[in-house]
């Protein structure tokens, strides 16, 4: 059974069967990654462009590796900033790249909606690698894969996303994906980091980290950065750590099994203490490994759909 769409723009509205299919396919590719020769010929002859308009290390490397493992030809294009400032427009850049006959475009951009825009100006399969504060679907898929790998299921689990929800592309994709898979999702963070009307996605919002630890099976801890306008949403990283940081003391207080995810890069001593980041509850590096398998699954399912 193929995926219902030829693009992966986000997880909003993606049917449960599609997510299931991606996660199941990823299991097969996960096994490939354990082989001595970690390469399959599945996408031989396909050309994939990684169009990164915003800096990224892990996501770009993960996609590139997934493409190489599937024997696709890959091109990397990185540029930062607005195309309004002198030079070629985004549309012209895309048209030029496409004229070289590419099959898929992986895109990351500072502006929400760019993947949707790409589907209107290009015939390639489009995969969203993060658009503004909108979605980052492959991150949520690898998070779900990792949760399922650790706990054997997603349905019925209680998952809390902790941190700066308002500026996160990971949060929204996780909310849509997890809800679709039957998990119960809540959010925890300072009120200034919770966007207006997020409850409309069917999540509960709390502002007490102890409550989040006490009542959930999984915490997905987001990276905290001081905004351009320092102090405009939280007074300081220190205060954030003291009131919302995940520390061993907090976890031990409740003495219960909990799984901690983090999409990285981690800020030790801010949203998560070093002890927790290296401790028994976290699965942060598993997420990274699984990320390659999940991206292989997405590339394979979209690349062989046409």
């Amino acid at each position: 059974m193929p995926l219902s769409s030829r693009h992966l723009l986000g997880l909003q509205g993606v049917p449960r069967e599609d997510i299931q299919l991606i996660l199941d396919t990823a299991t097969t590719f996960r096994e490939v990654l354990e082989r001595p020769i970690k390469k399959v010929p599945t996408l031989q002859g396909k050309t994939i462009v990684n169009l990164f308009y915003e800096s990224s290390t892990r996501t770009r490397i993960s996609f590139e590796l997934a493409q190489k493992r599937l024997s696709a030809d890959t091109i990397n294009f990185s540029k930062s900033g607005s195309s309004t400032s002198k030079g070629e427009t985004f549309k012209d850049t895309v048209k030029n790249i496409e004229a070289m006959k590419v099959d898929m475009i992986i895109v990351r951009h500072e502006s929400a909606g760019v993947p949707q825009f790409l589907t209107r100006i290009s015939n390639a399969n489009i995969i969203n690698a993060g658009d503004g504060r909108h979605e980052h679907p492959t991150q949520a898929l690898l998070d779900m894969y990792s949760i399922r790998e650790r706990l054997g299921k997603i349905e019925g689990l209680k998952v809390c996303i902790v941190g700066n929800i308002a500026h996160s592309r990971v949060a929204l994709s996780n909310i849509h994906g997890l809800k679709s898979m039957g998990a119960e999702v809540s959010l925890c963070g300072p009120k200034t980091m919770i966007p207006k009307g997020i409850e409309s996605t069917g999540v509960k919002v709390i502002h007490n980290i102890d409550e989040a630890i006490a009542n959930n099976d999984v915490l997905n801890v987001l990276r905290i950065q001081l905004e351009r306008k320092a102090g405009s949403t939280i007074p300081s990283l220190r205060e954030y750590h003291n009131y919302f940081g995940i520390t061993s003391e907090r976890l031990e207080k409740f003495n219960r099994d909990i799984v901690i995810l983090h999409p990285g890069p981690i800020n030790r001593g801010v949203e998560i203490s070093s002890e927790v980041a290296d401790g028994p509850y976290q699965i942060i590096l598993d997420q990274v490994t699984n990320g390659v398998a999940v991206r292989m699954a997405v590339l394979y399912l979209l690349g062989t759909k046409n």
Partner: protein
Amino acid sequence: MKILLKDLQVIDPSSKLNEKMDVLIEDGMITSLGITNSKELKDAKVIELDGKICAPGFYDMHVHFREPGREDEETVISGSNSAAAGGFTGVACMPNTSPDIDSAEVVNLIKERAKNHLVNVDVIGAATLKRSGEALSPIAEMVEAGIVAVTDDGAPIKTASILRSVLEYCQMYNIPVIEHCEEPSFTDGVMNESEISTQLGLPPKPTISEDLIVIRDIITVEYCGGRIHISHISSEKSVELVRQAKKRGLNITAEATPHHFTLTEDSLKTYDTNYKMNPPLRSQKDVEAVIVGLKDGTIDCIASDHAPHSIEEKEMEFIYAPDGVVGLETEVGLALTELYHKKHLTLEQIIEKFAINPRKILGLEIPSIEIGKKANLTIFDPNLVWTVDVSKFKSKSKNSPFDKRLLTGKSVAVINRGQMFYEGEFIKI
């Protein structure tokens, strides 16, 4: 030349006229109203207009004509052609050109460009030099050159103290100060703040951004006098604030755009930049409040905020695309479809909001349909069903969110300054 417009329903709210009659125009003047025997007027060009409405010429007090500076997007002439095609005999153009309209020279340039056109092009001067909010523009010199109002449109007048100065200075010339209400610390946003902006991941702009400046302006005008006109009002709270201010007898007026009484933020879901404007499209309850404001007179007039942008500038990543839509050629159709046919406003009220009130606000002579007066008329068919086609626009720019939309009601002809625009052409009459 004689021209006989036959079987029109003539509606002129200022003289309480609402009658079926023929209108005879000779050399640009109305010379006869009533039933005419066309056989007796062999030399007249007769145009059958049975069932069409004849009103005083419509006026749009908020257009951006991009000249000087961005003549690739719109010129005074192409914008005026667009106005004529849309049913307008007069417009007031905004000063955020390049250079800004902050000197008598630029005012004269625009007036010179427009001097032979059917459409009267009035000019709104910048309130402050380069619209930067630091120092007053040469307002008196610009008034002498013919400006009808001042504004820093694109932004509100930066500080309350400069606003006060502008209000006091303008009282000497009895011109209004037009305000784009947007509190500057919220300008990062690109759409209305709500659960939809959250779900789309687009930086939000809350309604309080607009409301706070409306409050500031009302309080300032109450303190120091003068007149303030609120541009493109879009939030429920702002409409209520203006309603209360009017009740207190303050000199506050307001306009609403067709997009703010027709569309909601739901349209943003495709990330189509033709729905990106400022103020942004708001929620359903804001749209309803704008309509109520138009009904009860809180909102005095309808204006397009006609904002031409080139295709390459609009076909851009959403957060980088410029704000604004062209509106002159869909405005009358949208008002008739959304306000008249949905029974919110009568035809008389529509005509007041297009022909009478904007001119009152700007202190312009109101054209009346009387024998011996110059013919300044808009003739429209309230029941004509048509489909918007941006490729047919007279405007140089095509950035309309209403392309392919079915509308009921359209301008058929405009007459002004001894010219008529009819069936796509300008005719000397």
